[in-house]
């Protein structure tokens, strides 16, 4: 009795028509060629990716692994690290006197600085899209502050807002308004930096402008014909079209706010009358009244003023974890606004 076999190896009784044959695998020589070809393609891809992978390994993976390792050690950069288990984390969560004020200050910037800056940037971009005359000039005017180095812009702002000699309070005084102490008042120091943040929002504004110019005009016309008012057009036409750009702005803004350092540090030093570079900068950080002490500044102080690199690494690891959680939440949230998310 003769029989054939299926590809699964099951015998098929003779006399019954065999199932249609699936495509046969290539002959051994063909398989070898295909395999070589695949390997060559893989190697080519790897070779092309090598610089990026190398950079990722050296500048991201290694520092990340090193930080995690050092966070479990007592380490001062000079002596060999000494393994102390979870002691740094125990200190962080139960004993560090300033980590929570630094965390709250940082979260304040995440909650207020990022949305306010984005709203202003989007608003200005929306106005510039509608500009009929001299639009190039206006775009330049609003973008230029973003080109000023952060240190220079902060120094200029602190002088402008100096309560005794700055022009801002003098102008307010002209209208009968008693200006606040701005960078010298714990209640006003962070809002003062938000004003600075709005002034230098040109980098985000220009991206929004490009995105808004890309929104098809026909969609607005169609929405208008359907009776959609301005707000409805914004909600149902503009936002869905610029969601990827909005997501980019929010994510990069949140990451930058979590790492907020330079502007706050320079503002503290200059407002405190100690605009000195290098010598003992740690002492002025946070002025006034720790209101400008951010998480990354505190990390810096513990690492490089107090020589606690192990503890500073624990702070860095926690920041990385928190930033990652923020990113995941934001990405999930934004997914809901994309076509895939709403499908």
């Amino acid at each position, binding site marked *: 009795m003769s029989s054939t076999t299926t590809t699964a190896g099951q015998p098929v009784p003779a006399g019954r028509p065999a199932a249609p044959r699936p495509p046969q695998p290539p002959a051994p020589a063909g398989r070898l060629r295909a395999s070589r070809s695949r390997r060559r393609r893989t190697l080519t891809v790897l070779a092309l990716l090598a610089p990026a992978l190398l950079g990722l390994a050296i500048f991201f993976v290694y520092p990340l692994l090193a930080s995690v390792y050092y966070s479990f050690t007592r380490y001062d*950069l000079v002596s060999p690290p000494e393994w102390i288990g979870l002691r740094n984390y125990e200190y962080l969560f139960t004993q560090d006197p300033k980590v929570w004020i630094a965390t709250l200050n940082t979260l304040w910037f995440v909650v207020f600085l990022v949305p306010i800056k984005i709203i202003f940037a989007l608003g200005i971009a929306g106005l510039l899209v509608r500009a009929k005359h001299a639009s190039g000039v206006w775009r330049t005017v609003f973008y230029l502050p973003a080109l000023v180095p952060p240190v220079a812009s902060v120094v200029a702002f602190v002088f402008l807002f100096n309560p005794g000699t700055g022009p801002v309070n003098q102008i307010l005084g002209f209208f009968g308004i008693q200006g606040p102490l701005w960078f010298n008042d714990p209640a006003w120091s962070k809002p003062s930096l938000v004003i600075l943040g709005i002034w230098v929002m040109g980098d985000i504004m220009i991206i929004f402008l490009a995105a808004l110019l890309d929104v098809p005009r026909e969609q607005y016309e169609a929405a208008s014909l359907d009776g959609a008012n301005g707000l409805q057009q914004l909600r149902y036409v503009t936002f869905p079209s610029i969601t990827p750009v909005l997501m980019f702005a929010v994510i990069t803004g949140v990451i930058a706010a979590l790492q907020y350092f330079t502007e706050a540090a320079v503002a503290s030093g200059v407002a405190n009358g100690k605009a000195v570079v290098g010598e003992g900068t740690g002492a002025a950080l946070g002025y006034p009244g720790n209101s400008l002490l951010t998480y990354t500044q505190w990390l810096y102080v513990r690492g490089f003023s107090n020589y606690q690199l192990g503890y500073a690494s624990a702070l860095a690891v926690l920041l990385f974890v928190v930033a990652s959680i923020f990113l995941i939440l934001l990405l999930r949230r934004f997914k809901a606004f994309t076509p895939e998310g709403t499908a």
Partner: protein
Amino acid sequence: MPLHSSQHARLAAVAALATAAALTLAGCSAGESGSDFESSTPTSLEGTVSFWHFFSDREAGVIQSVVDDFEAANPGVTVTVHEGQDDEKLRKAIATGDKVDLGLSYSTDVVGNFCSTGAFRDLGEVITRDKVDLEQFSDTVRSYTEFDGVRCTMPVLADVYGLYYNKDLLEAGGYTAPPTTLSELQDMAIKLTTFNDDGSIKTLGFNPMMGWYENSAAHLGPLGAAEWLNADGTSAIAGSPGWTELMEWQKGFIDELGYDKVNAFTAGLGQEFSADNAFQRGSVAMNLDGEYRTAFIADQAPELNYGTAPMPVIDSDPELYGGGYITGNIAGISKGSKNPELAWALLKYLTTDTDAVVKLSNGLKNAPTTADALASPDLEVSEQFQTFLDIMGDPHSATTPPSPLGAGYQQTFEDFWHSYQSGAVDDLPAGLAEVDTQINDSLSLVSGP
């Protein structure tokens, strides 16, 4: 479940990566050790020595001129100078190997950590070998250049703090001499203060705001013989009555003027290290500052009619008058130095050669630290500068003790003082006890429980 070959490969790759990372971390963690000192003083010196310091611009030129003198006296030696290097860069460079032979820091706060970790090597061996007389330095200067019995640094000039007063403003207020106690200072300051029509402060007799310019806990401590650390390195702040008296005086002074008014006035003052300095502009009649201010005034406000004196002291112990806070630049030899003998020769020259110390002092307008330099006829001493040399020699002068925490313990205390002066603290003793706890907790993180 048995693993497929691809899973084996992935596991092996992860294991290899982890092993490589661990080896790399272990290998990169600590800098290498350098060469040892020789058992006897070398008869001739040859080679290149790298010298890292923080000075820049004009001050770097002063340092360079002394280095040139050293090279002229030692023709076989070349000094490679790296200027403008702050403590953070210096520490990183030391940690990564043999780039630094000799390092000069602006802060005595690094001494505790640099000595205890070995970043700067113990100089005891060569000091004994070359019979360097440490008695030429004052007790205070000796104390801030060593830690826990290890002398890893030598002093390169000193900063001394005292009272600057505007003679014209004091005379206009009916005063002919500066105050000697803190209550006198407060009385005079209040009387010398002027107000605008709206009640805000126009000029201030003395600005008591903690954190402003040189108003720091470290600089005020000697005025009340206040103590920072116990012998075992733990905090002594809560148990030191001098701190309580100083803080209560300062808070009372602030309250008399009004915290908000003083804060608003302070906010409008110019930058400390600019021509807008409040004392140089006459916005404050008296001010706490270092001896280096004499050079700034000579340069930026030569017409200012001013005098200098020791800072007034607490009323309960007027005997303390005459002393003040002393600190200074320090220099040491890196643990990774490949040329420790050359570095030691340069360090010895910078810190003990009378001509070099006098030249540095005249150029940088800092106080010299050796007895011979202080007595040198070549030392340029104005009437105002002499005050600081007198303070330096006073037995009541003091410094901040070295600690493995660096300046961390001072920052913790000053944070509390800031809260206290703003009225946010009700219970001073309990607050000071909390400061002790915070410092000790931080210390345990650095040094172990």
